[in-house]
Structures are given as C-alpha cells and as structure tokens.
C-alpha cells in the first residue's frame, strides 16, 4: 500500500496543472499586429502540443470526466489565425489523453500488458516531443509559419487520433491484460485501410504482447504460471491435489486443476486448448519428479506476432514435445501397458487359477451377508490366493485390494449419474433391494493406482472395471454352482433313471450350464478380448496422453455396453435367469437325495451284490413334489429364456453385437 501511495504521490507532483490555469494573460491578443499574433500563437501552439496552456490558449475540462477536455483560444484573436489554430487542437487533445493514459497505466497494479503498452506509447510520445522540439528550433530560426506547423503535424495527426480513440475505449472500460491485446488487434484490423495507422497499431500490439508472450513461453516450455497480475488466460486451481485422483470419481484434478479463462487473446484463440494441454503435460512430468527442459533456441522464442504465424509452429512443436515426452514417461517408466494387463488379469478375470482358488477359500466368507463380511479376512484370503497361484509372478499383484459394496449391481449402476442407464432405471423405479444380498453379489476387487497412472486409471475408470468384474464374478459363481449340481447328477448316473424326473432335471441342468457358459463365453471372448486387442493396438500408436485416456475410456465404455451393463432391461433378465439357476443349483441336492434312495447293501444279502454295484445301490423313488418342482424350474427357466429372444432381436437393431449373444445363448432355441 505504501508503494501505491508513493506512486500516486510522485505522480501527482508533476501533474497539478490546474492550479495554474487561473493565471490568465495580461493583454488581449487582439491588440497585437497580425504578424505578431501569429508568432504568439505559434509559441502557444507549441506549448499546447505538449499539453501545456499558453498565454492565449487554455484547456477546458469538463468536471467529473477526466478524459474529456477541449482547447480554447482567446476570442479576440484574428479569425483566420483562430481557425488555423483550431485545426491543430485535436492533436493536442490526443497528446494529453495519451499522456494521461501512460501515466495511469504504468502503475504496478495495472498489469504487465498495460505496462508494456504504456511503455510503447511513451516511446511514441518521446518521438512526438522530439518533433515538437524540432519545430521549436525551426520556429526560433524564423522558418515556421502557422501553415508550416500544420503541415509538419500532418503525419502525426492520423496515428495520434487513432491511438486516442483506442485509449478512450481502453480506459473507459478499464481494460487490462487480454482485453487490451484484443482491442489493439481488432482496432488494427479495423484500420486496415490506413496503412500507416495500421502498422503503428500492429507495432503497439506487438510491444504490448511481448510481456504476455513471456508468460506464455514459460507455460509452454516449463509448465509454470508466472503471472503476477492474473492476466494469463489459464487459471490454476491450487486446491485440487493430484492425490484426489485416486478417489475422486470425476477426475477433477485433470480437468479443472488448470482451466481456460473466458478471455483469450484472439490470436491464440484457436490454439488455446493446445497451449493448455502442453503446460498440463509438463506439469504432470514435474509432479512426477521428472525434470524436462525444453531446449529453447532462438527460433523457438515466441517473439514475432506477424502474419507468418511462427508462434503457431512453436506452440505445435512444444505440444508435440510435451505430449511425446509424457507419453514416453508413462509408457516406459511407469509401464502403463503392464499395469493395464495386470488389471485385466484380475478385474477382467483373465487369470483363471487365482480366481478359482480364491473362490474356493473365500466361499464361506462370501456367502455371509454383506454387512457381516470382514474385509480384512477377505483381503488376507485374497493375498493367500494371489501368492499361491501363478499371480505371484506378477510384480503388480500387491496392488490388488478388495472391497465389499453395499448395493446390488443394478442399484449401483443407477447411482452412477453419468450413465444413461440411470434415467431408465430410476424411471422404472422398481429397484427394491433384495432382502439378503450376500458377498457374492457385492464383492469387488480394487486396485491401488499411483500417480501419474491415476490419470489414465482414474476413479471412474476403475469403477467401470469394477462393474464389469462384479458381473463376471457373479456369472462365474453361478456357473460353478451349476457345475456342482451337475456333479450331483453324475453321482446318480449309475441308476437307470431313464424317463424319470431325475433325468429331466439332468437335462435342465445341462441347458442351464450351457446358457451360463455361453454367456461367459460371449462376455470374455466376444466382448472383452477383441475390444482389449483393439485398445491395446491403439494405445501403441497413441500420440498423446489425452488420446490414451480417450482410447481407454472408449474401451471401457464399449465393454460396459456390450456386457449389457448399460441395458437395464436385459441385465434384469440376466439376473433373473441367474437367480433361477442358483435356486435350482441350491435345490439339486435335495431333489436328488429325495428322489434317489441310496440303499446301503445289507451285509447278509449276499456277497455278489457288493461286487456288482460298488457297495451301494441306487433306487429311484417317485416323489410328486420333486417332480413338480423340477417341472416348475424348467418352465420358469425356459420361459425366461424364450422371453429373452424378442428383447435381443428387438434391440439388436440398435446394438448389433447382441445378435452374437442371441446366437450363443438362443442358438438351439432358434433352430427348433
């Protein structure tokens, strides 16, 4: 504050002109001879040209308005001289305006662009003052007439006028920073017809932007915002920390840490996005502790704002450098592909042995209710499964963690606001939570992602992975249960059960198994694998990190869509089918044991029977309830499966991949 007041103080010192305006002229000019009058007028005009009142000229200010002032002459002057003098006054007025502007804009708080602009104006004014001094010399040599003065002033009048109008606009709107630059440029374009004025304005714009370009240069080449007066068009939000990426669903850090402001210099408007990302990339590298120094040569200096667009080349080069470097860093040092592959192993169930082992040892814990499950126990079981299978060879396996969610898959999908599914689901509003959801429905893996990989594997991406994982995991579970049921059936194969309920049940079991396996096959081989390959090829050829993020997101979105996770209607059907399968699998044991009697051979009944049927005999007993329930399961399952047909064929118009699914799971049904 002391600084500003001092500034004011030292400025007003030189500018208290008003106090002198009262000391008027002694004699009216009319008493002199016309030739003397001309000399006096010329002397006065020379003063007026540098903004000083003379004997017979005075400045009239309109109160309250700083920049509206007019020069006046003594009315007793010779009329011809008066007219001649009045022609020159606009120039004097422009000078005063510009001078005032220079003084006010040199203050510190006005910003770098204003400073530079003021400095350029000051240089111009200095030329102008020198010209006036030259005119004075001519005057002293008696070579200057009023006409001559007018003639000599000609070259300046146009530019000074144009400048004065620019300045009036700038100061009335109190422009700073970008606005000044834009004003100068647009004005230069508007004055295209007047070559002199145009070049002058262009020069002004050039000078004014030099300080601005320095800020731009630091941002482009170092990723630093060195902007003491807040003029740069990129804003930094320091409250966002890079650590937030690992839990912030919207990845605010990446999108909002640096943002474009509203006002962008017109000459940079097209490349503003590129400039923003360039600095962002450099910043990422710096945050990684990776020091990049862009070699700054003379040719890459952002100096020339001419029409040759050299600066555009520079920006392009800087962008290419930064994106290439960052991509290399993330690919090579942080091994993005390795991470993605590892995530695929676990979250997309590409590594079977680990999962089977885990399901075996964690079954008991997972069948508990979601709120009773101890996550620590699951975690240690997961670690055990990881270490005792092939996954142990993967260096990233320690990053895997597990979590248990609170809601079902459908519910979770509906809470994610950016999926289109949420609308359709919430519209239906029939999402009552099943009374008891077990860990099997809510279990999910998670993955610890470190900066800077969290740029690609953001919270959102991981959430999508988790959604796919939960779906796959549950399908796997159902399939395993059905396999168990099938085994039970195998156990009673020895008995001749042709035409009984058991054989019917066995058929049903097989068709369920076929359904589940086809579904799994579709999900893994028809959806995930091909899409993964497409993505991985694209990532190899990607040129910037934004492209990588985009391709990765695309992959996830495509997988989600093709895994039917975005089609609630279909997904609900699938859930329903899986539920029937599960119920059936759970009931199998009871069905079989109550319909097939395993009679222990009676010890005394004869030895030969022991040899014949391996110490047991199986005897089928007709049981009405069993037959009923098997039939019920069968009709229910078939009905659901049949109803899937129209839905699939309806939607396959819009979603062609569904025809594949239909072929897989309904293939037999279509033939019939």
């Amino acid at each position: 504050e002391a600084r500003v007041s001092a500034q004011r103080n030292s400025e007003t010192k030189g500018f208290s002109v008003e106090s002198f305006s009262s000391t008027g002229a002694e004699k009216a000019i009319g008493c002199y001879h016309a030739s003397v009058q001309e000399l006096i007028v010329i002397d006065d005009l020379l003063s007026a040209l540098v903004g000083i009142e003379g004997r017979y000229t005075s400045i009239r200010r309109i109160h309250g308005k700083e920049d509206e002032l007019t020069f006046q002459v003594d009315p007793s002057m010779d009329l011809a001289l008066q007219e001649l003098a009045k022609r020159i006054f606009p120039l004097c007025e422009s000078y005063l305006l510009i001078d005032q502007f220079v003084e006010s804009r040199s203050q510190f708080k006005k910003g770098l662009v204003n400073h530079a602009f003021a400095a350029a104006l000051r240089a111009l004014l200095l030329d102008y003052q020198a010209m006036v001094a030259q005119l004075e010399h001519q005057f002293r040599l008696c070579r200057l007439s009023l006409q001559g003065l007018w003639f000599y002033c000609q070259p300046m009048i146009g530019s000074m006028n144009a400048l004065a109008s620019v300045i009036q606009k700038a100061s009335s709107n109190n422009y700073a920073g970008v606005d000044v630059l834009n004003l100068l440029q647009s004005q230069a374009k508007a004055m295209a017809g007047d070559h002199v004025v145009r070049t002058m304005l262009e020069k002004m714009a050039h000078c004014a932007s030099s300080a601005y370009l320095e800020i731009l240069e630091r941002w482009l080449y170092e990723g630093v915002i060195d902007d003491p007066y807040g003029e740069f068009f990129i804003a930094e939000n320091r409250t966002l920390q890079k650590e937030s990426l690992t839990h912030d669903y919207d990845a605010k850090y990446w999108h909002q840490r640096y943002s474009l402001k509203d006002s962008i210099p017109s000459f940079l408007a097209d490349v503003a996005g590129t400039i923003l990302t360039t600095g962002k990339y450099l910043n990422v590298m710096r945050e990684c502790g990776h020091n990049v120094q862009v070699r700054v040569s003379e040719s890459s200096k952002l100096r020339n704002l001419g029409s040759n667009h050299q600066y555009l080349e520079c920006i392009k080069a800087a962008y290419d450098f930064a994106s290439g470097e960052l991509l290399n860093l993330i690919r090579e040092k942080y091994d993005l592909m390795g991470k993605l592959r590892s995530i695929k192993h676990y979250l997309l169930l590409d590594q079977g042995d680990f999962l089977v082992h885990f399901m075996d040892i964690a079954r008991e814990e997972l069948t508990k209710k979601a709120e009773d499950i101890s996550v620590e126990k699951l975690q240690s079981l997961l670690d055990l499964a990881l270490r005792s299978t092939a996954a142990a060879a993967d260096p990233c396996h320690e990053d895997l963690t597990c979590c248990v969610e609170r809601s079902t898959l459908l519910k979770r999908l509906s809470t994610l606001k950016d999926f289109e599914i949420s609308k359709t689901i919430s519209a239906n509003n029939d999402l009552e939570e099943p009374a008891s959801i077990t860990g099997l429905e809510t279990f999910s893996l998670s993955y610890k992602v470190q900066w800077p990989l969290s740029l690609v594997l953001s919270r959102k991406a991981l959430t999508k992975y988790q959604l796919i994982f939960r779906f796959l995991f549950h399908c796997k579970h159902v399939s395993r249960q059905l396999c168990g049921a099938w085994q039970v059936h195998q156990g009673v194969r020895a008995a001749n059960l042709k035409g009984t309920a058991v054989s019917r049940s066995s058929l049903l079991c097989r068709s369920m198994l076929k359904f589940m396996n086809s579904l799994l096959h579709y999900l893994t081989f028809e959806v995930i694998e091909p899409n993964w390959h497409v993505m991985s090829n694209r990532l190899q050829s990607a040129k910037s990190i934004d492209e990588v993020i985009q391709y990765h997101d695309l992959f996830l979105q495509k997988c989600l869509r093709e895994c039917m996770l975005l089609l609630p209607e279909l997904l609900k059907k699938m859930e329903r089918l899986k539920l029937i399968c599960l119920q059936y699998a759970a009931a199998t044991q009871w069905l079989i044991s109550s319909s097939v009697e395993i009679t222990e051979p009676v010890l005394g009944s004869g030895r030969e029977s022991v040899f014949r049927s391996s110490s047991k005999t199986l005897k089928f007993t007709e049981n009405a309830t069993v037959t009923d329930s098997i039939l019920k399961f069968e009709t229910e399952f078939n009905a659901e499966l049949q109803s899937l047909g129209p839905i699939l064929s309806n939607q396959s118009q819009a979603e062609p991949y569904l025809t594949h699914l239909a072929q897989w799971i309904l293939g037999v049904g279509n033939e019939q």
Partner: protein
Amino acid sequence: EENDVSEEVLVRDVLYACQGIDGSYIKYDESVDGYVLSDVIKVPRATRIMVHKLCELGWLFRKVKGYISECMDHFPAEDVGTVGQAFCAALQDELTEYYKLLAVLEAQAMNPIPLVSEAASSGNYLSLRRLSVWFAEPMVKMRLMAVLVDSCKVLRGGAMAGAIHMHAQHGDPLVHDFMKRLLRRVCSPLFEMVRSWVLEGELEDIFAEFFIVGQPVKAESLWREGYRLHAGMLPSFISPSLAQRILRTGKSINFLRVCCDDRGWADAATEAAAAAGTTTDRGGLGYGETDALELLVSEAAKRIDKHLLDVIYNRYKFKEHCLAIKRYLLLGQGDFVQYLMDIVGPELSEPANTISTFKLAGLLETAIRSSNAQYDDRDILDRLRIKMMPHNTGDRGWDVFSLEYDARIPLDTVFTESVMTRYLRIFNFLWKLRRVEHALISAWKTMKPNCISSHSFLKLQQAVKMQLLLTLRRCQVLWDEMNHFVSNLQYYIMFEVLEVSWSNFSNEMEAAKDLDDLLAAHEKYLHSIVEKALLGERSRSLYETLFVLFDLILRFRSVADRLYEGIYEMQARSTDASRDKKRRQINSKSAEPGSWVSEGRKALTQHAAKFLTTMDQELDDIGKKYSSLLKGFLSQLPIQQHIDLKFLLFRLDFTEFYSLSLSCNVNLAK
C-alpha cells in the same frame, strides 16, 4: 517578449533544481513540498507550467538522494545491513549516470537560446522544451527509484530484496531492465551468503539479514534446533522448498563439522561447485539465475547429504547400532535374553532398594559372555548398560530394572533423550511380557513331571481324589489358556510388530537421501512399534488391562507353585506313610494293623481336602477374573484404529472360542 528572466537562466535554474540545489529563481518550498518558481517573477504561463513539470525530477532526486545519504551516514552504526548498503550503492551508481547527463546538459545550456528575432548562431542550445525531451527517460527511472526508496525504507535484508523483486514484475522493458540491474546488485550479498552457507556452512550474516538463523545449542540438538528459517527474510524469488534445501545443506555441513568431526565434506562441496559450474570462490551467482542457484543447491545437497549419510552409516555404524538396540533393548537376541532372565531373576525378586547395580552389571556381563552376544562388536557391548529407574517403597527389582543403550555423539541426534525414553517404555513392556512368559514356562516345569498320578493317592478318599483331579485339571486348563494368550501376544509383538517395523525401517534407511529422511524413518519405526504394541495414547486402557492380566498370570504362577508344592508334600507324606506301613507290616505283624495308618490317612485326607478346597477357590477366583479381563481386552481390540490389531484378534480368537462365548453371553443377557 516581456519576461523578467530569460529562458537560459530558467533552464540553468531547472538544471540546478534537478540536482537538489536552489537556484536564483527556482527554490525549494517547504509548504508545497516541491521546487517552485517564485510568484513574483513574471513569466508566461506556459513557461511556468513547463518549469513546474520539469522540477518534479528535482523533488524525486531529493528524496532518493536523501535516503542514500541517510543510509551512508548511519551505515555501520545503524541497522542498514549489507543488502541495504548494496541497494544504496546501486542507487548511487544510477545517480552517477544521471549526473553525467546533467553535465552534458549543463554544457549545452551555456549556449544562448536564439530569439525569434535574431539569426541563430548555433543549433546546440537547450530550451525548456528540449529539456523535457531529455528528461523523459531519467524521469521514469527516478520515479521508480523514489517508489523503491519509499517502500524499502523500513525493510532490511532478504525482506528488502523480496520487496524490490515484487517491483520488478513490470511489463515495461525499460523498467524491467532497470530493476534487473538493480536487483543483481542488491541480491549479490544474499547470494553470497547462500553460496558460503551451502558450500562452507558458514553463516556470514553480521546484520541478521539472511533467511537462515543460527542459535547456539548443544551438539546433540544441533540438527533439530541449531538453525531455522526466518520466513520474514525469505525473498519471494526463493521458493520455500528451495530454502528448506538450502537450510538442510548448510546444516549438514555444520553437523559434519561439529558433531562428526569430519573434514571430508570440503571435497564434496568443491565437487558440487564444479558440477554446478561455479567455483567455491566468491561471486558467481546473481539475481535472475534461479536455475543456477537451484542447480548449485541441488548438487551440493546431493553430495553433502550423501557424504553425511556415508559418515553416519560407515564411520558411526548407524545401522549396527540400530540393530544392536533392536537385539538388546527390544529383546531380539533370544538366547541372551533368556539367560539374562534366568540369572537376574532371583536378584530382581528382592525389594528394589536392596539391589546393587554393580551386581546386576556383573550379571549382565555374564549373560553376554555366555550367549551368542559375546561375538558382537565390543564397542556395541560396551554401550549396553543396566539402568535402575527411580523406585518407590515396595517396588521389586522387576519394576525398576531396565537396560540402556548409550548412543554417543553424533548418533544422539537420532537417539535423543525422548527417543530413548520411548525405547525404555518398549523395553519395559517387552521385559514384562518376557517375564510373564518365563513365569508361565517355569510353572510348566513344575507341572510337567506328570508323576502326580492318581495311583499314589490311592489311599485318599474317592471324593478327595476327584477333587484333586479336578483342581489339577482346572490348573492345567487355566495354564493352557494363559499360555495361549501370552505366546500369541508374544508372537504378535515379536513378528508382526517388531520385525515388520524393522523391515520397513531398513528399507527406508536404504532409500533415505538425507538425515531428515533418516530421522523421519526412525521416527516412523518407533511410532509404529509404539502404536502397534499398544503403548500408544489411544490404547492406554488396553495397555492397562494388559498389565492387570500380566499381574494375574504372575499370581497364577505363585498359586500353581503352591498347589504343586502342597501336592508333592502330600505325595511325599503318603508314600512315607505307606512305606511306614509296609515297614511295620514287615517288622511287626502286630495285632491291630491299620490303626495308625487309618488315623494318618484320615488326617492326610482332611488336610488334603482343606488344602485343595482353598487352592481350588483361589484358582477359581483367578480363572474368573482372568476370563472377564480377557473378555474386556478382546472386546476392546476391534475398537482400536490400527489394522494390525485386528490380526492380533484373529490370532487370539482363531477358533472363535471367545467371540462365541461373548455372543452367547449377549444372547443370555437378552
């Protein structure tokens, strides 16, 4: 032309005024605070305004000049400082430039100004208008200087440099260059200080202008308290993180010099300077070369920190000492601890005030010699001492005994008093745990010889025999329960806590780049032990419960000892009796057999029944207390924040015995 004075005179007067000198017409006026042309002189209005405008320069000059002379006059006496001095010198230089211009102008002013009427003799004259052209640039500079003088008047040192730096943020190239030149001069003393601090560890700061402040402290707290940053003096062009690195580098040098008595850092410093492209001589750094400064600091920091760690690791064997502390103070060396416990045990059971430290020291030495610890470095073993803590009346030796490790300079920077007290707390806890374990094992020793078989008590009544068996069983079960608890706790502490923390610590020790990292790693190590071993503030109640449990176990041990003693006695008596009987039977096949025996048997039975009843009661009492305490302990465990404590719970309650009984109780209560 009707002027009182000619323009030449006025021009000359303006030139004088611009050097702060009163001319014949233009004088300094206190009331308006500026140079004015006296009103009595009649000149045209334009001239008057012109003169007034030009004289602003004089007013500014006066201000700047006044500041410079004030500073120069007061220099050594008053608080100006080297930065202020440099500032004055730089201003003075600018003024010299200005004088040069004035001298040229003065010469020009001597030429007469041609009047309109007469023919011009020479074009090289100076009019007021020409003067205003000449003065345009000096005016800008002078204004800037005046502003700086105004804002820097009250500031000193780094703060002044920072304030000037703030003014350098100007878009006008002229101003920018001017400020840069000025700052280069102003900052040179500061940069010199940084250089000598970073490369030599010298604090050459007579006027307290540097952003690092030193204070005399003892060698052991030199690292923590010896030097600190003075935020007020930190110029804004040096970032806080850089300042922190600068501070640490110099501190490292001082630490090496004072505490480690090392000279090797000088080579490291020279190397660093060479790598950064400067020499260790004066000069070489300047304002605006933040990159160079950063490079120098990072090079120096890298080398000196490495050297410091080398010295600490290799010459002062930090790792070995840490390991020794882990082995002796944290009871990592099992055979040594076992032996020590064996031989000092009897001694420590005495009241605290009767124990002689010398004797204990001797025993410690014996323990060292007879365990594998004897192959350890003598230097390390010499540092191991017995420490008796202050005792109250009634304290036993167990309560006051502890081991101590003497970390000499410079390692006492890491192992400060407070750190050692924390180690002591951990030691006490571990020692107690060991003692309890030891007690349980020795109880097992008495219980183990399973010769107390029922056949030796054949003579006892059936009921008493049953009672005896029940009591023995109760004792056995209780022992098992306690042993399960203690050995699992022991396992948890030794493996899950100590070893895991140690392994983390040694990894971090490898990765540490400077002493601060090392200190932080050690702090983390200690903290994790304290937290996980239930010694933290949050687990105070758990810790207290644990100690009550320990006391209960010790009490159990004495009860068990008494029980078995009693049983042995009974056994001895009954065998005596039976032998007596046999002898009698052999010696004199008297007429009334069994009268003595039956009487003896009856007394024995009575005695046994009584003894067993009291013992049974006592065991029952202990058992009840123990199970309720343990239940409390287990129920508190899950509330603890630390995740590892959950694993302790798993371990203790692996078969879900306790949680089942707990939930049973809850159900019953319902």
